[in-house]
């Protein structure tokens, strides 16, 4: 019985400490998932667009040159003025455009998609997980 009381007491102390940690720890996790960006799409969501979607690679030119999604167009902030006309060579009004960068942590695809929408490309999305997600799916 004493052992049970002791265990209960320890449990209470542990819960109290966990509560304090959850309240003050600078790296405490958020219990509310941030709302998903409506312009973010997963690879699964892009599958029905196969053959019609225009892929845009927002990574630096050197990474694009090394490997990219087939038929993707390279478009990044560094060379926007030079590359945007080339993007327009491939783009048709109303076409869905999906921008990707290297991985989930990278923000470039989100930013390039936003700039495309501001330029007049109505359906510009960015790919969740980026190039890394594409490779993991082992698509051609």
């Amino acid at each position, binding site marked *: 019985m004493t052992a049970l009381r*002791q265990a209960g007491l*320890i449990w209470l*102390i*542990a819960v109290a*400490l966990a509560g304090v*940690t959850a309240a003050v*720890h*600078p*790296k405490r996790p958020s219990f509310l998932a941030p709302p998903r960006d409506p312009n973010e799409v997963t690879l699964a969501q892009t599958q029905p667009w196969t053959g019609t979607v225009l892929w845009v690679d927002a990574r*630096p030119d050197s990474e694009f040159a090394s490997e990219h999604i087939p038929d993707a167009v390279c478009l990044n*902030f*560094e060379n*926007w*003025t030079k590359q*945007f*006309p080339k993007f*327009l*060579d491939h783009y*048709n*009004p109303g076409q869905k455009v999906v921008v990707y960068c290297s991985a989930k*942590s*990278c*923000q*470039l695809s*989100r*930013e390039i998609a*936003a*700039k495309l929408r*501001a*330029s*007049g490309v109505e359906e510009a999305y960015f790919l969740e997980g980026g190039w890394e997600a594409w490779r993991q799916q082992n698509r051609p």
Partner: protein
Amino acid sequence: MRFSLLLSLFLAIPAFAQLKWDTTEQTLKAKPGDREVVATYRFTNTGATPITIDNVHTSCGCTTAALAKNDYAPGESGQIVARMDIGNRTGHQEKSIVVTTKQNPRSPMVLRLLADIPEPVVMKPTFVMWALGESPTPKIIDIKVTDGFPVRLLKVDSDNPDIKVEVRQVHPGVELEVKVTPKDTSRPEMATLLVRTDYPSDNPQTYYAYVKVK
């Protein structure tokens, strides 16, 4: 005795990082003329032992992060200065700076730099297109100087005589309506519209809009 042992196990509070940061996220707004955005992240070694920052990595080639030195004694403060080159970037930008210490390499601190970069001149849209054979009905591009930027819109030229532009001064020098009309849509055409400005005075910038018949 047994109770004390168990209690001490539960009381083993996770070893928080020794570096205490004044802030780990900064939101900055670029001003007209800015070529970079600079954020400073101050920290203090609040632990009882020296700490070594052995890696500072940024998420973008456009951002650098400078650290004056790597070793910090207990109680000592330091700072990381992150600079993001604006270049062609506009709108909302998010960059991260990952800081790793020798003492806690598996728990890097991620600092965030959020920046809002206004565009001196906004064109909506930046391109117009006609499909081959489509009626050559004029299309409009609105060009406007963003408030706060001392920019004058001087003129708009087409580099293709078969793509005609008519400019209406909505507010002279600061807001234009450009009517674009292709002479013919039976064959592919393209043109670049050059929007000339007087800003910045040392190197006046030209903005581009694009026209395609395809």
